[in-house]
């Protein structure tokens, strides 16, 4: 045990109520992983601060004793972003879960990071508004986690991801200082640091308050699906719709393996014999949706759709979406385990990439179910396996890596919404060369000179700020210089 742990423990006990400070093994075990459960690490301590001052004081202690720390929201992340470090503190923001302000005229809501995504929409529903980013985990995931991962969802084709819906935030820097970025206005002079912090995977500090943009609920929503004999036809329908000047709220494709799994669990009304289905949602003013619907139907027919089914009411619409949103969980019906990746490809490379993944699936002898955000080319291949079979997970990881390579080779990205985290950090060099990563490290060093905040994530190898163009002397010189202004 680090000789300082006792001292740190004493300091934490002075900051936190007993029920906000967990240090016994049986208490800590629940925090040893996020939704990427194949990796587990027990932290030294788990703390659950209730306000920004506590977060700041905890981090000041960490800074003083060089103890790493990892922030955590609801732990629904799929890339291991909230995986603890074994010599560090896990900081759960779960208790900071208040909606602080609803400002309808300015179309914004101010929340603490532990507020659940869906609660924001619920809070403003009666005013006719909602919070647009809607990850599948929205009934449990938190805004703080969404900010860290720049979460997307099924409607981000039209409405964008988290970064497009954040006006400002308050955060505690890795030295304990509390700062604000952005605010209630849409523009502030100076660098757009807000853009960097959103999606920084918890490496730059801990967010303690978020100002969210809310959006007006659409007047009309039309949801439909079309079934196809080939996934290529579903793919060309997607391009066809966009080329016609229509950007639907969402476009999702599911392959036959997925359709069958979903049908056994939720009975969403999908045709089980279809090779694939394309689920489309149009929303907007009546006039717009009504004008777009026939165009969409035309495109689908031109691309050999077998069946087109438009949800006749809200209940059926919800059912169509329930099928899509429960696709991951439904895999439990057909396989003991699954592993999901979220690589992105240019939309016109869909058929080619799917052919290659199918080939890989056969080579590895592992079934891959495909469900994805087709409108933005964000794949979610679900590799089915059995973790009880020795060595199978290693095989799965290797296959997943090959898929990511294909995505990048096709001109895409290794992650569209789940983040790099711990899971994909060894793959990030597929996309970014040393210069790119060194530039990103300049940002890490700007915020976190000691490298204490969520270490071991995002970057393939840990580096110190002294290693990329900045000498230790230079780093501490900057630190001294800036300290005068910051503290």
């Amino acid at each position, binding site marked *: 045990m680090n000789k300082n742990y006792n001292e740190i423990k004493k300091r934490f006990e002075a900051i936190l109520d007993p029920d906000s400070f967990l240090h016994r093994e049986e208490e800590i075990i629940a925090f040893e992983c996020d939704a990427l459960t194949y990796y587990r690490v027990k932290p030294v301590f788990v703390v659950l601060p209730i306000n920004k001052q506590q977060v700041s004081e905890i981090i000041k202690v960490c800074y003083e004793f060089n103890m790493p720390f990892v922030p955590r929201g609801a732990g629904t992340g799929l890339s291991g972003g909230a995986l603890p470090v074994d010599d560090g503190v896990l900081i759960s923001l779960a208790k900071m879960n208040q909606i602080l302000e609803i400002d309808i005229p300015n179309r914004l809501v101010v929340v603490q990071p532990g507020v659940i995504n869906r609660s924001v929409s619920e809070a403003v529903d009666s005013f006719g508004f909602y919070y647009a980013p809607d990850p599948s985990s929205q009934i449990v995931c938190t805004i703080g986690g969404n900010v860290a991962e720049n979460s997307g969802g099924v409607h981000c084709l039209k409405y964008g991801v988290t970064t497009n819906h954040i006006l400002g935030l308050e955060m505690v820097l890795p030295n304990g200082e509390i700062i604000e970025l952005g605010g209630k206005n849409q523009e*502030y002079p100076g660098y757009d640091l807000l853009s960097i912090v959103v999606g920084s995977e918890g490496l730059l500090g801990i967010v303690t308050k978020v100002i969210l943009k809310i959006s007006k609920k659409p007047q009309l929503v039309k949801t439909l699906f079309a079934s196809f004999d080939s996934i290529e036809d579903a793919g060309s329908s997607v391009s066809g719709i966009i080329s016609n000047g229509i950007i639907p709220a969402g476009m999702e494709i599911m392959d036959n393996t997925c359709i069958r799994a979903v049908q056994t669990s939720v009975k969403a009304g999908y045709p089980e014999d279809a090779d694939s289905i394309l689920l489309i949602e149009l929303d907007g*003013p009546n006039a717009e949706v009504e004008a777009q619907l026939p165009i969409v139907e035309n495109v689908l027919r031109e691309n050999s759709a077998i069946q087109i089914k438009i949800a006749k009411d809200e209940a059926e619409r919800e059912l169509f979406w329930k099928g899509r949103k429960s696709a991951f969980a439904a895999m439990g019906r057909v396989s003991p385990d699954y592993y999901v990746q979220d690589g992105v490809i240019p939309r016109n490379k869909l058929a080619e990439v799917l052919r290659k993944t199918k080939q890989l699936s056969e080579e590895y002898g592992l079934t891959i179910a495909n469900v994805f955000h087709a409108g933005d080319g964000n794949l979610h291949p679900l590799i089915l396996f059995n973790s009880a079979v020795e060595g199978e997970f290693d095989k799965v990881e290797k296959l997943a890596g090959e898929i990511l390579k294909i995505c990048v080779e096709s001109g895409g990205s290794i992650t569209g919404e789940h983040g790099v985290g711990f899971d994909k950090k060894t793959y990030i060099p597929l996309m970014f060369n040393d210069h790119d990563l060194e530039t990103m490290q300049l940002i890490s060093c700007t915020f976190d000179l000691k490298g204490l905040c969520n270490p071991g994530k995002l970057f393939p190898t840990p580096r110190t700020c002294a290693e990329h163009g900045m000498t230790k002397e230079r780093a501490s010189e900057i630190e001294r210089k800036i300290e005068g202004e910051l503290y």
Partner: protein
Amino acid sequence: MDKKKINIEEFMNFISHDNIHTQRSELLKFQVFDKLPSIALYPENIEQVSQILEYCNSNSYSVIPFGGCTKVSFGNTLTAFDVALSLERLNNIVKHDKEDFIITVQAGCRFKDVQEFLLSKNQFIAVDPPLTDKGATIGGIVATNDYGPSRFRYGTFREQIIEIVAVGTDGKIFKGGAKVVKNVAGYDIHKLLVGSMGTLGVVVEVSIKLYPVQEESLTFITGISDSEMLKSCIQKILNADLVLSSIEVINPELSADIFKLTGIRPIKFPYTLSLRIENVKKAVIDQMALVKSILNSDNLEGAVIENDIQVWEYLRNFPYKSNSNNIVCKVSVTMNEIPRVLEYIQESSENLDVKIFSSAKAGNGIIQLLIEGKNKDLEITVELLRSYLTTIQGSVICQHIPRDFGKFDSWGELGPSSGLMKLLKQNFDPNNILNPGRLI
């Protein structure tokens, strides 16, 4: 340590003689306030930009990147200026992926050329910045985060750019983002570079999302008599089931120009509300009917403008239309404060010897201003506005000030994260060679 005198021979090691200018007459277009460079370089490829920066950095020569030279008076006075780095010969369309709605262009491409190329393919870039007729380049628009009235619907380049390749001060070529519409890998360096005023790196290549051209566009214009009414109208319009491209509130000085342009019978109201809807034809017509019925319920009459392109061209370019001594500035407040701030500007301008043209993005909380007058009066106006805005957590930045304006801070307070911004600048540019003093 004294800087070594600039030696043209050394630059010729990596850039041909034709791409180096040193004559005063050639350097004048790069004048930034009181400063002229010693040399202007016109690299033809990214590698040359890299070599230039590496060389300049190691000799501590300050470098100012230029695109179309349309916004040279945006930002604070430079603390040093040795090398003008023109990107105008880096002007290739690298790739247009029509099916995937993405274009990759070099930074020196003129926005207008790229947009015309895309329009011929029935696609477009969804930002509408000013000065594109004067040669504004993609790189310059990115560096200044410039935009126009369609910001309400589409945002700025921050929302539209998916990847940027840039050259760091040490000559290293780096990128942020990826050429796909959705991507969360790594920090969003491409977003950080938008609006960074060429102080963190030289943007050399940009990938942008595209949109299909809309079938129809109509504009509705109406006069409103007081700020309370304006406030309630804006909220009603924003709450209605409409997809607006733009919602602008124009002051009488500017609306006079619009009336002249469109032939609409002039109406003298303190506020002219202008709404644009673009969509498939039927959707535009139906939504226009809704706009009319909402405004009619408040006894507001108005006119529909068909062929509205020139109206919006005018509104996006108006800040730079003046031939008189002027400043151009931009106010940012919460959107609900817009009517109050407009009222304040109107009232205070009556006591000042200035002429103000303004258009407010009512759905974004942003007011674009063109203020004509003598330097002394211009300065008083900005200072008054600034002190008023601090009471409502607003800000004002100046995008153009006269060359002889003297020492003046175009940015105002950089706010509670200014320490972090300075540290970021130091980390990206330890020798402070890129646009020194312009922003940080």
